[in-house]
């Protein structure tokens, strides 16, 4: 009985994110849009993937050896949604907004869930590093750019996002270094 209910949790969370009150609040600032709403949507997709039956996962794995197909999907989708233009479109054009709510959970979250663990360790390392570098690059860019990238957000917002990205990236780098140098592990790392 419990298991049956749990299957609906991701859809419930997805619905909550899609409903106007929460959606509007999160989209009102660039910081919450990029750092809360988009990751939350990806997480919902990841959660949804957890509920896949063994049979289904096996069938998908045939097309997703070593997790390659899934990661191609994840990387391309992330590239697209990092475009300032895409973020603007999601706010001003309903079609793009709807697309965001399907594409990010499925193509990033679910695809990640089904692929990451089967990915070879070296590929994992490369992707992690690249993901971290993207954080730092974007953070730096958002701080130094004199112009607004998104027509729907203020320059101040963009700067704050830049600083947060740099801080998160640095924390990540430090915790990583500690792990590699001294074998210190956090439970969640």
């Amino acid at each position: 009985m419990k298991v049956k209910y749990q299957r609906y949790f991701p859809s419930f969370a997805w619905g909550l994110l899609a409903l106007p009150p929460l959606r509007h609040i999160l989209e009102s600032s660039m910081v919450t849009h990029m750092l809360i709403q988009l990751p939350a949507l990806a997480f919902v997709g990841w959660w949804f993937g957890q509920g896949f039956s063994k049979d289904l996962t096996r069938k998908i794995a045939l097309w997703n050896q070593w997790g390659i197909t899934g990661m191609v999907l994840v990387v391309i989708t992330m590239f697209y949604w990092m475009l300032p233009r895409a973020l603007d479109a999601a706010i001003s054009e309903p079609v793009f907004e709807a697309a965001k709510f399907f594409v990010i959970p499925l193509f990033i979250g679910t695809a990640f869930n089904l692929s990451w663990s089967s990915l070879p360790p070296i590929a994992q390392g490369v992707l992690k590093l690249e993901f971290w570098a993207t954080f730092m690059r974007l953070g730096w860019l958002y701080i130094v750019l004199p112009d607004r990238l998104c027509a729907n957000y203020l320059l101040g917002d963009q700067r704050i996002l830049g600083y947060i990205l740099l801080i998160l990236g640095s924390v990540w780098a430090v915790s990583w270094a500690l792990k590699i140098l001294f074998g210190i592990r956090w439970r969640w790392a």
Partner: protein
Amino acid sequence: MKTLFLSTFLGISGLMILWVGTDGGRAFTAETARRLEVQERPKLVPIWHLEDQNSKILTLSDWANHYTVVDFIYTSCTSACLVLGSELQSLQKKFELALNDNKLRLLSISFDPEHDTPERLRTHLSHFSGDGEHWVAARPTSLAERKEILDFFKVTVIPDKMGGYTHSAGYHVINPHGQLVAIFGVEEYSMLQDYLSLALSKEGIDES
């Protein structure tokens, strides 16, 4: 084999989507995209009724047969509009001949029609020594019209959390056929000048 096939397929279609989504790697922001769009596909400007600084109603058909440079402002603005205003002022000086010859018009549209009464628009013009005849300031006559105009020009206006607005700032050029043909950013003022000089010389007006 299946993996290779599917991931290549996804990779290629993904790159194609990125390519199309950025207009072939040229427009990564909505602002560049809107400039590129009118440059490649000029759009016919619909007929609107605007109220000018003398409470006179203007329609776009009044603007036919000459080039029009449009900027978007609100009179209580303390940043971008001041730059726009002073650059239109120099434009007014530089293209005096064309203006007097009715080959060029300047138009400042307020997107804050509730506050920007004709009187305030008049003050705005006088602040930049706008002549009020060849350089006109006007406001939409209704909020529905305001939205239509902003949507047409794809100008985004957002509250700046200090009681004012932040908005897409630029110069929108409408040609004598009533088509929106070019958009220049504030930083592209010199390009705007070159564009107008060229366009007007084709019309037989030579500015020195």
